[in-house]
């Protein structure tokens, strides 16, 4: 059961809302140049965090590449106190550096680093468990072949970098997720819920992809 397209005609959309949605997406991902031309074309107001976007992008790229220490330095400048507040994030960033050391086979340094920087987190059980996982990488001459190889992957780095990005935005009192993402998620969830209610067998699935194409 699909919604009658004519119902869309009855719903009013504000142009400004659309502009803001697009802008929030661009800001979130630090597309500074695109933001500039967008502002010029549409005439919306320059967002407050314009200058910071450059720095935030740098932090994100550093984390993505695994240069965690630099990323931490810049984060302290950009969002002071953030890492103190968010221990999870701090820990995850430090582990990125640890992983770097392991990948470059610098085992002694890795052990030292772990002992000095990571063990202080040791009073909380979940960090201990995570740390165990990371330490297990050291036991293998080829960490890529160890059971914990996923910790070395770019997916992991991506995950940490994105968390960092979100945290910095939140710290500046900005939304941590671009509006368009939320809207898409909202649509899918609501449609799925409705489908379930209407059609208990769940035969008709809502596909966002198809919807966008139609």
């Amino acid at each position: 059961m699909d919604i009658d397209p004519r119902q869309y005609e009855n719903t009013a959309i504000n142009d400004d809302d659309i502009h803001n949605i697009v802008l929030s997406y661009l800001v979130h991902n630090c597309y500074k140049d695109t933001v500039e031309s967008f502002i010029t074309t549409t005439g919306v107001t320059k967002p407050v965090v314009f200058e910071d976007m450059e720095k935030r992008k740098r932090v994100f790229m550093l984390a993505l590449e695994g240069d965690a220490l630099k990323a931490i330095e810049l984060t302290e400048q950009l969002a002071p106190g953030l890492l103190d507040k968010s221990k999870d994030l701090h820990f995850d960033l430090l582990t990125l550096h640890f992983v770097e050391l392991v990948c470059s086979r610098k085992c002694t340094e890795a052990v030292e680093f772990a002992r000095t920087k990571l063990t202080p987190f040791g009073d909380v059980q979940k960090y201990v468990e995570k740390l165990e996982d990371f330490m297990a990488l050291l036991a293998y001459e080829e960490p890529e072949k160890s059971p914990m190889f996923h910790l070395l992957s770019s997916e992991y780095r991506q995950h940490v970098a994105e968390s960092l990005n979100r945290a910095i935005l939140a710290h500046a009192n900005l939304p941590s997720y671009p509006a368009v993402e939320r809207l898409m998620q909202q649509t899918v969830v609501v449609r799925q819920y409705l489908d379930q209610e209407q059609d208990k067998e769940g035969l008709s699935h809502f596909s966002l992809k198809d919807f966008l194409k139609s």
Partner: protein
Amino acid sequence: MGVVDDNEPPSKRLKGPPGVSKEDTLHNQIASTSLEDSMARPLSLQRDDETIGLKGIIKKHEFVKIINRALYSLGYSKTATILEEESGIPLHSSAVTLFMQQVLDGKWDECLNTLHNIGLTDEALIKSASFLLLEQKFLELLRKGKHMAALLTLRTEIVPLSINSARVHELSAYIIYPSQFLALGLSDQDTDIALSRAKCLERLQKLLPAAIMIPESRLEHLVEQALDVQRDACVFHNTLNSELSLYTDHQCGRDQIPSKTLQTLQEHKDEVWFLQFSHNGKYLASSSKDQTALLWEVQEDGQLILKHTLSGHQGAVSIISWRHDDSQLLTCGTDETVRRWDVGSGKCLHVYEKPGAGLISCGWLADGDGIASGMSDKSICLWNLEGNIVECWKGHRTENISDMAVTSDGKIIISICRGSTLLLFNRESRCERIIEEEDRITSFSLSKDNKFLLVNIVNQEIHLWRITGDPKIVSKFKGHKRTRFLVRSCFGGFEQAFIASGSEDSQVYIWHRGTGELLAKLPGHSGTVNCVSWHPMNPHILASASDDCTIRIWGLDKPKCKGTTQSNGKVHHQPNGRT
């Protein structure tokens, strides 16, 4: 062909009986049953298939080895070494001895080498043993602060074994968390290293096949097995565990069952209907048609003396119930009241009665803060100590036969309902279970562990029911006489392994609970024996109550001094009997 190790002291070579050639005995070694294909061959040239003992099933070299092991365990290493020399049977092959020493010395690389020489063929076993050794090496390196060396061991030696990756995971964390493994007890002390290496050796012993490394305590284990078998086979077994001896096969004689009247108590003036020892065995309470209950104290020498007379009932007293702490007791009788008495003073603390209905049976609730009574109006009432009825259940019938029991945890109330049925009422869950008997029930008795019920039936049988889960009959006991009167039975003896009952032929009957075999009939009374009670602490004392107005105390009949099958455990035992 075996190779004689040159390092062996000369005394260990060529000890075979004269005339037996070297080839011969080695042949036998190959032909004899061995547990492993490449079992380390003992260097003695005695025949491997030599046996000792009458039945020829004990292999001599195994026998000597486990004795040897026991000697080492006891700390007699000098004797043990001499035994090895004299018998020519070394406890372990030289490779194994070397291996064990290397473990204790912490020479890990040599150890791993030797491991391959001790005769193991199972690859997986070798790996597991190597893992244990390397783990110990790793932990010791950490203890000394050599983290990188430990890491190296982990990476290059342990991980390639490709087993136990979960443990590898844990070990890698120890590198930076010394506190975690310090908790394992590896501190800086030298003695602790020795201890932990000894523990490592223990773990290896458990892992490796017994033929290669004789397990510790093997001899002790075999002896304990034998004792267990003897004890289980002993039908009259009525002695404490401390009496088991290795010198003779344990066999309690008939003389372990009480069989002789030690004392006759004649203070009652009429038929004695009920008696019961207190939970701690310090007192005996008896009740009689003479409307009194008597409280007896059991003295150090086993003699009973009258302590208090509890009078007040207006009719025969038929039931006594002891409080769990033995400080008070309840009596109930044909006057349909229940009285509560203080044991210390003998005073009546309270009289429980209900206008319009009679109390015909009674029992304590587990915490001793309340009592339960069966009523003549076919209900069961719960009272508080002050005499107020707290709860009442109707809906099932209790007959006038006054029997009620409450399990010691207070949860289940058992009563006779409808003649041939017993009701088990669970107070918490409010659920009822039924035991259907084939004939009318006259009395019943609950075991100490609340799991069994002894039920006396009109047809002169006593049935033992298990009441955990679905009630089921376990055994039947017969032989005694019961036609007209109420006769009671009880559990008793060591671990409640016996059943005793009264009988109308004036004798006390005793059966073995496990086999149902009638063990003894004790004559002495001149009237129906109504009730028996076995002493809860001393398995050799039994009391019986009879229509001849007396109470008899039974004990062992002049124990002969047969080794250690005597029990002179604690108290209440008359070695020379008394009439």
